[in-house]
């Protein structure tokens, strides 16, 4: 009780004082607007909608199945299904969202929409500077604001995007093979048309009229590890 | 040697403080005005060249007694507004008595003739060293007596202000649960 504890504390703060000038481990502050933290790949902020190719309207992966809308814990997603259909990447005709809104002010960035989406259509963005002077309309993101290209996705989450692309390529391949087999069995004209559709993640063949069955939501495929 | 302007200003300040202290409604205001009076007196002492006395006055009266009074006011709930009857016969008698005392004193001063007498040449301000020496040599006995009395007063005040032991009330109910 002679004040040695106090002295020890003073020595400790002095060490930190001088240490902060020489030791990078001590002075850890990132001077935010000028310096920026390297965001980890896993970083998630708010959802966005993926589209393939160049046209956000045509390439939008979302088929308006409304699973995310149902599963969203804070109920911040609002979808209205389209009247008509357009073909998806494997050429199947699907609905698309006529309206797709996300209320970012309510969204709690939980990523559950991404997990439950069977179509790889919704993903998490890493943009966090979303402040706006309009607290209502400014934070209600509509389809044009939400749609981001697959290239962008590859840029912000490279590993995840590569996995996703691979999976989709495989699926497209299988679908193509299936379509080819079906076409070979039926008519040469249809097979020809199917062959024109580019492989990979690009937009499904336009004007493909083969698959006209109503939308079947693939039930089994569940993204376990994103 | 005439009465100087600073003296007059300080005298007015002191008297005003005193009057305010004795007449204001709120006790805390009274205490604050009393402090002004004390400080004014200290300044008067300084003005008259009694440096040590003035500073001692400031230290003791403003630093200690005023604080004591303020504490006493707060502890006796005097800080709250309490209406005091503005006029009472006893009060009027007090004022009359005080006025009479002043009349007597004033009459004595006026009739003594010093009013128009030429003043003695002002003394040089007392050097600190000589006050110290006086206290330690000529007045050492009174000094010791005063010291003893201060100690006694301090102990007495502490004993007075200590709370009487209240009978210990029953134990708290909650802990029994």
């Amino acid at each position, binding site marked *: *009780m002679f*004040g*040695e*504890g*106090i002295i*020890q*504390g003073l*020595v*400790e*703060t002095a060490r*930190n004082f001088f240490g902060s000038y020489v030791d990078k481990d*001590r002075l*850890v502050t990132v001077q935010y607007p000028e310096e920026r933290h390297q965001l*980890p*790949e*896993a*970083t*998630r902020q708010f959802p966005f909608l993926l589209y393939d190719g160049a046209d956000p309207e045509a390439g939008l992966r979302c088929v308006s199945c409304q*699973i995310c809308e149902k*599963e*969203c*814990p804070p109920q911040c997603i609002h979808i209205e299904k389209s009247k008509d259909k357009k073909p998806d990447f494997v050429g199947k005709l699907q609905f698309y969202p006529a309206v797709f809104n996300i209320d970012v002010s309510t969204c*709690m*960035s*939980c*990523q*559950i929409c991404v*997990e*439950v989406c069977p179509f790889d259509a919704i993903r*998490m963005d890493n943009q966090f500077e979303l402040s706006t002077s309009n607290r209502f309309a400014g934070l209600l993101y509509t389809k044009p604001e939400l749609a981001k290209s697959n290239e962008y996705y590859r840029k912000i989450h490279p590993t995840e995007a590569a996995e996703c692309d691979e999976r989709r390529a495989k699926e497209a391949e299988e679908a193509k093979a299936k379509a080819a087999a079906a076409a070979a069995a039926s008519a040469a004209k249809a097979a020809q048309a199917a062959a024109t559709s580019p492989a990979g993640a690009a937009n499904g063949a336009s004007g493909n009229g083969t698959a006209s069955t109503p939308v079947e939501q693939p039930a089994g495929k*569940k993204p*376990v*590890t*994103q | 040697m005439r009465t100087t302007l600073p003296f007059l200003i300080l005298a007015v300040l002191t008297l005003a403080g005193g009057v305010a202290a004795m007449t204001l409604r709120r006790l805390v205001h009274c205490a604050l005005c009393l402090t002004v009076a004390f400080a004014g007196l200290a300044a008067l002492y300084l003005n008259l060249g009694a440096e040590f006395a003035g500073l001692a006055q400031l230290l003791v009266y403003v630093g200690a007694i005023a604080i004591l009074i303020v504490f006493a006011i*707060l*502890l006796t*709930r005097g800080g709250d507004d309490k209406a005091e009857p503005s006029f009472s016969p006893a009060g009027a008698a007090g004022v009359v008595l005080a006025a009479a005392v002043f009349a007597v004193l004033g009459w004595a001063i006026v009739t003594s003739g010093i009013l128009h007498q030429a003043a003695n040449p002002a003394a040089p301000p007392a050097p600190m060293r000589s006050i110290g020496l006086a206290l330690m040599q000529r007045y050492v006995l009174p000094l010791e007596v005063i010291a003893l009395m201060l100690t006694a007063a301090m102990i007495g005040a502490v004993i007075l202000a200590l709370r009487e032991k*209240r009978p*210990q*009330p*029953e*134990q*708290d*109910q*909650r*802990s029994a649960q």
Partner: protein
Amino acid sequence: MTGVAELERRVEAGEDGLGDILEVSMGPHHPSTHGVFRMDVRLEGEKVVRLKPVFGYLHRNHEKIAEHGAYLAAIPYTDRLDYLNSMTNNWGYVLAVEKLAGIPVPERAEYIRVIVAELSRFQNHAGLVGFLLQDMGASGTPLMYAFREREKILDLFESLSGARMMCNYMRFGGLRVDCTPAWLEEVRQLVSGLPKFVDEFEALLRGNEILMARTQGVGVLPRELAINAGVTGPMLRASGVNYDIRKVDHYGVYDRFDFRVPLGDHGDVYDRYMMRILEMRESLKILQQAVRDIPGGPIIDPKTRLRGLRPKAGEAYGRIEAPKGELGFFLISDGSTIPCRYRVRPPSMINLTILEDMCLGHNIADVVVILGSVDIVLGEVDR
């Protein structure tokens, strides 16, 4: 000390002379109530003669929300209970669901759960000690040191789960994503550096005479009262009760690790403070072993239905040792996809039960310190 009953009578009777009783409402906005929390305090001088905790300012009926959504949808909400420890909250909830639905968990997932939970415990305790000393007036220095290390742990959480605080990482049957070897290496490196931080932290204030004078003998919680009042966590162990759910329940894979449970003898604020520091060291020990022994394999049981889980009608109570105490979840299923009853046992709310008992007779400055040592997070108290 004048008894409460006597003072109550005097206040009611208007005999509050001598400036005896001063009623102060500490909070809901007060620098040291750790959120919107209020204490109705009656003071005699500066001595507390009555103290009633008032809360609910942050109440958002978490349980009702969870009873409206699927089992999966409740997980992100548990993040927001004790928002400093989303990982352990997740774990408590998924443990209860796993019990309710009988879902097995792969071994690797259990190891990763231990790693993130212990990291969480470490940062919680470091932060708490910082806040406690801040409440004591230490100008934020210990708090800043604690936050410096906490940031490193949060960075790890972010690179694993995508978010720093609201991790939403665990799933019934396992985890959402696997960790990479690089991440484990980062954990290993961090864990090897953290003991130095704890040493520095202790050097800063452990032997400090002012700290000892402020905390020793203050807010004593007797052993029997602690047990009876259902106090759990470091607070209970500071009162000398050997009860750590990691040891008692053998949940997860805690059986496989060698660690000790620190116990205090006095049950005062100093003991509670030291419990946290000692537990930080034990957490580091567990972390070292977990990172060393982690097996390979899947991280989630492949048969688990995350979406549309329908447990058989019945109920289950699952609990874990969260940094603040026993965090339990009680679920009743009626066979549908939505929990019929969802209930959280919030440790910090129940630990508040004896706040008044600890504060009575102490100085108002002690109230702040005692409250700090309880370690409350209002998100969890109010839910």
